[in-house]
C-alpha cells in the first residue's frame, strides 16, 4: 500500500478557472498539490484583504493567510459543503485575525499607513480640506466597524466585500439565514449614522412612496 505522504507527488489533473471549488477541495484532500495551489490562488486575495482589514499590517495579514489555509486543510473534514470552501476559509481567517488582535492587543499599529482610500487618485484630486474630511470619515467608519459585535462585523464584511449571499454567510457563520439578515441590518443601522443624512434620501422618498 502506498504511504499516504507519497500521494502528494501523484500525477494531477489540470485545473481551470472553471473547476469548481468542491472538485479542487476533494483533490486537495487526497494530496493533490496542484489542486491545493489552485485553491490558494483563487482565494488568497479575498482572504488577505479580510485579514488586512482586521490587523492593518501587510506582513501579519500574509501570515494569517498562510495560517488560515493550513487550518482549513487540516480541518477539511469539518467542512460540511465542499462548495462553501471560500466562505468557510474566510471565516477561519476572520477568527484567526480576531485571535491575533486579542493576543497582540498592545502591539497593533496605531497608524493607518496600510490603509488608504482605495480610490486614491480621486482623493488626491480633491481639495485638501475635503481629503482630510474623507480620511477622517473613513477612519471613523473603520473604527465603527471594529466596534461591531463579531457576528455583525463578519456578516457585513462577507456581504459587502465578498458579495456572499445571506445563505452562504449563514453557512459560513453557522447561524440561520434570518439571523444573518438581522445582523446585517443592525450593522448597517449603526454605520449609516456615521455617514450623516443621505443626500438622495429626500428624492428617493418622494419617488418611492
Amino acid at each position, binding site marked *: 500500500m502506498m504511504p*499516504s*505522504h507519497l*500521494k*502528494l507527488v501523484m500525477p494531477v489533473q489540470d485545473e481551470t478557472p472553471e473547476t469548481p471549488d468542491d472538485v479542487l477541495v476533494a483533490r*486537495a*484532500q487526497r*494530496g493533490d*498539490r496542484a489542486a*491545493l*495551489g489552485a485553491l*490558494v*490562488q483563487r482565494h*488568497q*486575495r479575498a482572504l*488577505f*484583504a479580510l485579514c*488586512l*482589514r482586521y490587523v*492593518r499590517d*501587510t506582513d501579519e495579514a*500574509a501570515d494569517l*493567510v*498562510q495560517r488560515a*489555509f*493550513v487550518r*482549513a*486543510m*487540516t480541518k477539511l473534514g469539518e467542512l460540511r459543503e465542499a462548495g462553501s470552501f471560500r466562505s468557510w476559509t474566510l471565516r477561519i481567517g476572520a477568527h484567526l485575525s480576531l485571535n491575533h488582535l486579542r493576543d497582540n492587543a498592545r502591539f497593533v499599529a496605531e497608524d493607518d499607513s*496600510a*490603509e*488608504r*482610500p*482605495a*480610490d*486614491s487618485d480621486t482623493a488626491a484630486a480633491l481639495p485638501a480640506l475635503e481629503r482630510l474630511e*474623507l480620511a477622517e*470619515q*473613513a*477612519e471613523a*467608519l473603520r473604527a465603527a*466597524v471594529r466596534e461591531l459585535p463579531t457576528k455583525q462585523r463578519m456578516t*457585513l464584511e462577507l456581504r*459587502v*466585500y465578498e458579495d456572499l449571499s*445571506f445563505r452562504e454567510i449563514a453557512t459560513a457563520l453557522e447561524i440561520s*439565514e*434570518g439571523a444573518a*439578515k*438581522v445582523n*446585517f*441590518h443592525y450593522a*448597517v*443601522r449603526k*454605520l*449609516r449614522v456615521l*455617514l450623516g443624512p*443621505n443626500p*438622495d*434620501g429626500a428624492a*428617493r422618498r418622494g419617488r418611492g412612496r
Partner: protein
Amino acid sequence: MTDHQKTAACAGVVERLVESGGGPLDAATEAHVGSCMACYRAMTELRDVPRVADALRAAAPDLPADERFWAALAARTTEAAAAAVTVEAARPVRSRGRWRVRLVSFGGLAVAAAASWMLMVRHPAGTQPAATPAGAAAIGAVRWPGDEANGESLSDVAELDAAGLRRLLDRLGAHAPPALAGGVADATDAADIPSDDEPRVSDEVADLDGDSLRRVATSLERVSL
C-alpha cells in the same frame, strides 16, 4: 392582528427588506411598510445599504499591486498547506505509534509496581536493605526464587550496555511511584516519542512476557550503573 403576529410579520418583512438591498418591494411588503412604523424605519435604514457599502469599500486598505507578492504568498501558503495535509494524512499512523508508546509505558509501570510490591513483601518494615540512592538499586534488591535457573535470560538482559539500561530505567522511572523513581533521570514528554535513530529498549521490554519482565527487573541488581 395580535402583537405576536405583528412581530412575526415584521420579522419576515425586515428579512425581505434586507434581501432587496434597497431595491423594489413586492406589493405585500409595500403594504406592510406603509402601515408599520418600525418596518418603515427599517426600510429607510436599509435603503442606505449601497451608500454604506460604497463608503466601506472606499475605506478599505489597498492591496499590494505587485504580482510577485501574490506569487510568493501563494507559493509559501501552498507549501505550508501541503505539509499540513501530509501530516494530517499521517496522523492515524502517528496515533497508533502513540498508543503503542502508551502501552509500553504501562508495561514499564507494571514492572515498577511489581518490583515495589515484591520489595515490600520480601523486606517488611524494619528489615529494609541499606538505603540505595537510585530507583534501580531499589529494584535490584528484589530476588525471586528460581533466578539461578533462568541464567540464560538473565544474561541476555545483563548484556545490555549501560546506556541501554539507563534508558530502560528512565522508562521505568518515569512512571514509577516517586519513591521508587528517585534518582532516575527526569522523564520528559519527548521521551515518549523516541527518535527514529534511537534504539527502542522500551519496545523490547514491551515484547517480553510477565516472567521475562520479572527477570529484567532482577537483572538490574547485577549491573552497576
